[in-house]
């Protein structure tokens, strides 16, 4: 057991020994070491969060054919620190009519709901917060607190825009939670566990290959959960100015903003864990936990990049369109896919791996194709009803 193979345990044992040497009992020193570990992880995450601001701004600039921040420091790397200093020394105004306690609690809960997600993220086989056997549901439970923080912010600001934004965001979050929950069952079925580490360990074949449609639906639901474009009607700058966080300034706004970025990165990570093998990459993770952490972070970054790609490509859609999209298309599709997956999983139980993978993949493709065809004909009918039936022009050759 060397530092190279299991750094967390070696460091923890050493620290515990030091604390015990100071005359603490074993339970207390254990908890203290765990506390320091959590503090270290969250501090690293917050520093990463600062650089996420830079990454986000650089990437959006590239998407929009601009350069992005490039004045402060090399490649504008110091820019986010300047942003933070600005946020800190800004006056923290509270609207006079606001509900003060709830108003101040909302940004704190918003940030917390993102940070506690990392308790179940396995960065490497041996570097993880805790191995909860309900890790998948824990994801949703933490999201519930995030939902609550947004409705608190929207309500406590005592502002019409904030309330409308908060309501919209909560309606969207709860609606898209159904397809997300359903899609979380797909890795659960394949791995026979709700434990994140077990899900990663059972991905000898990436679940993305076994269930591409599931990965896609999860991504769509995750983007809605994050409140990012095309589902960002909680902020809706053109109509609601800034939505639920309209009255927030200074560091309280900063908490919402940083929370959103870290949330997006975290969901990129969960996408990687659930469908792209997490820290696994052709056995490289067995060389050293440090390499595994690197792989995990890179995969999370790729997931985050996909979320950004969607954000800066799509236009914002209306709330009614969005809820129809969820309840009339995504939710039924998610349920059908779940049943198809369960059925195929039972039918192909004894099959060799290549047949299993092929069968699952084809089942997904066929399900997705049928769903898209149905949606296409339904929307065509809808359009014709709106436009008035046009005579069908047949091309004669």
């Amino acid at each position: 057991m060397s530092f190279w193979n299991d750094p967390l345990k070696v460091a923890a044992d050493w620290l515990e020994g030091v604390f015990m040497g100071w005359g603490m009992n074993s339970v207390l020193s254990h908890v203290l070491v765990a506390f320091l570990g959590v503090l270290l992880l969250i501090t690293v995450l917050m520093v990463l969060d600062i650089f996420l601001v830079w990454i986000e701004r650089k990437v959006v600039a590239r998407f929009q054919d601009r350069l992005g921040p490039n004045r402060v420091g090399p490649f504008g790397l110091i820019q986010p620190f300047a942003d933070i200093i600005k946020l800190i020394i800004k006056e923290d105004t509270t609207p006079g009519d606001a509900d003060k306690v709830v108003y101040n609690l909302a940004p704190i809960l918003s940030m917390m709901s993102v940070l506690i997600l990392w308790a179940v993220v396995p960065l490497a086989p041996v570097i993880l917060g805790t191995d909860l056997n309900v890790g998948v549901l824990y994801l949703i439970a933490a999201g519930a607190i995030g939902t609550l923080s947004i409705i608190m912010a929207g309500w406590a600001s005592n502002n019409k825009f904030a309330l409308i934004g908060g309501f919209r965001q909560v309606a969207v979050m709860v609606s898209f939670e159904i397809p997300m929950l359903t899609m979380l069952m797909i890795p659960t079925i394949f791995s026979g566990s709700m434990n994140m580490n077990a899900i990663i360990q059972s991905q000898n074949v990436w679940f993305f290959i076994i269930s591409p449609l599931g990965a896609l639906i999860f991504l769509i639901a995750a983007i809605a959960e994050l409140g990012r474009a095309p589902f960002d009607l909680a902020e809706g700058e053109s109509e609601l100015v800034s939505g639920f966080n309209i009255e927030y300034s200074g560091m309280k706004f900063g908490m919402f903003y940083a929370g959103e970025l870290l949330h997006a990165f975290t969901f990129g990570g969960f996408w990687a864990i659930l469908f792209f093998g997490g820290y696994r990459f052709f056995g490289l993770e067995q060389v050293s936990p440090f390499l595994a952490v690197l792989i995990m972070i890179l995969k999370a970054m790729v997931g985050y990049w996909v979320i950004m790609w969607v954000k800066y490509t799509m236009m914002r859609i209306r709330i009614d369109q969005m809820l129809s999209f969820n309840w009339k298309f995504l939710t039924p599709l998610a349920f059908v896919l779940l049943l198809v997956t369960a059925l195929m999983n039972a039918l192909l139980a004894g099959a060799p791996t290549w047949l299993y993978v092929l069968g699952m993949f084809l089942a997904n493709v066929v399900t997705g194709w049928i769903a898209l065809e149905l949606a296409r004909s339904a929307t065509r009918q809808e359009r014709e009803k709106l436009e008035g039936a046009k005579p069908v022009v047949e091309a004669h050759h």
Partner: protein
Amino acid sequence: MNEWIYVALFIVVGLIIPIGAIAAGFILGPKKPNPIKESTYECGVEPVGEAWIQFKAQYYIFALVFLVFDVEAVFLFPWAVKLGQLGLYAVLEGIVFVTILIVGLVYTWRKGMLEWA
């Protein structure tokens, strides 16, 4: 103790960090409140009426439908965990379970409750 102690630590640290950041902003930032600065923002005009108004009932319908499917998903998770080790009959039970609820979704849809009216 159990693994939840780590979750508790994450909650504690997750509260300390934002509180610390906001406190730093509170200490370092200027504090010169006045009634106009504290007035509610409403697109450059004086706020009209109360913001805590009665809200659109449609949101409530979606929350109701969501609640039913949320509980359903909770029932399905233990089923999903064991599915690999159980035979076809467990899959059929799941199909019956979900189909009954899809009937509910179809009913809601046909009644026009999913329309944004």
